[in-house]
């Protein structure tokens, strides 16, 4: 009898703990867009972009700094896409001097896609994958990007590049 009561109480206590509700990192992710830069004159060779940063532009035409990037010289970058919109506007800004955004040359690329919610677990809920990836370069007076090329139209992971940019 006492054992039964002890058992009931013990299980009542167990029931309170809901560790399933804590989302642990690493299960699955909403992948970022991976872009690699190639030499326009020699399309098989990667080419660095100097003093370069990528940032976003929101619906009010305000710059949105992406937390994953900083001014650097690199031949590849990862940019998070908007999960609330089918279009993400990215600014590719190079030759920035002394962290002064007034300097250098920037090109705007509009990335469009279709969003797919993928169920992961009760703790993490859904991540987003992107399909039907498309890019368009806004023409300005001095484009440093010569062209873009989609390698993979669906973004499901961050293991390989999705877009090539030639410059």
């Amino acid at each position, binding site marked *: *009898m006492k054992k039964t009561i002890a058992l*009931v109480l013990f*299980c*009542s206590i167990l029931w309170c703990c809901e560790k399933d509700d804590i*989302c642990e990192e690493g299960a*699955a992710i909403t992948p970022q867009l991976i872009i690699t830069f190639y030499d326009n004159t020699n399309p098989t060779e990667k080419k660095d972009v100097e003093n370069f940063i990528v940032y976003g532009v929101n619906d009010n035409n305000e710059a949105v700094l992406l*937390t994953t990037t900083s001014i650097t010289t690199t031949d590849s970058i990862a940019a998070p896409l908007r999960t609330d919109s089918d279009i993400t506007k990215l600014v590719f800004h190079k030759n920035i001097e002394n962290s002064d955004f007034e300097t250098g040359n920037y090109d705007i690329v509009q990335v469009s896609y279709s969003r797919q919610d993928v169920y992961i677990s*009760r703790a993490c*809920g859904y*991540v987003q994958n992107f399909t039907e990836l498309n890019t368009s370069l806004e023409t300005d007076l001095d484009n440093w990007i010569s062209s873009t090329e989609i390698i993979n139209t669906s973004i499901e992971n961050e293991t390989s590049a999705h877009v090539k940019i030639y410059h």
Partner: protein
Amino acid sequence: MLKYIISSLCFVLISFYALAQNDSISQDSIKYQNKYGLRVGVDLGKIARHFIEDDYTGFEINADYRLTRDLYVTGEIGTEEKTISNDYLNSTAKGNYIKGGIDYNMYQNWYGQDNLIYCGLRVGFGSFTQTLNEHTIYDLNSTSWGQYTNTESKEFDGLTAIWAELIFGIKAQTFNNLYVGVNIQFKKRLTETEPDNFENIYIPGFGRTFDSGSFGIGFGYNISYLIPLYKKDK
């Protein structure tokens, strides 16, 4: 949750007290006959949870019929609606269930007593819908563009689940033919229909599901009344 535990404690104490009370009934020379009949009750725990928790509604009617001195056929029928939410998901499960099985009384009653400490088996069937009320996209880089919560609700209907239960409990006679009881149910899902691109977070009758496996747990706090049909020596 604390209130829930306290209320369960009270029930256990009341039941225990009732058992103790009956211990003191003096023997007399009249040959005692066991009552056989149909015991019908409700789960007070589910009714209490409706008032304690904002996001729960439930009701269960249970019944058992005595076959032999120690063996009962039992059944429960009920309905539940439960909303569960965390940082990323908010969903509501709603539906009905039916359970059937047997209880075996392990308690050796003293003369004139009619209490049960029992173990039993059940098979449960639940039919329900699950509504994903809203979900927030899990995105490690959400600090850039902000977290996006999709508030478009989506209903997954025609879901079913079948499970088995091992049940342990007590039923104590308080007044004439009136019983209070508590029980604990250990459950294992046998089959279920999983919604597409989602999962069953809560199953009416089964309760909350867990990532770790197909096991579940439930509690019952019953009050029931025995409708005596006939008496037998054994």
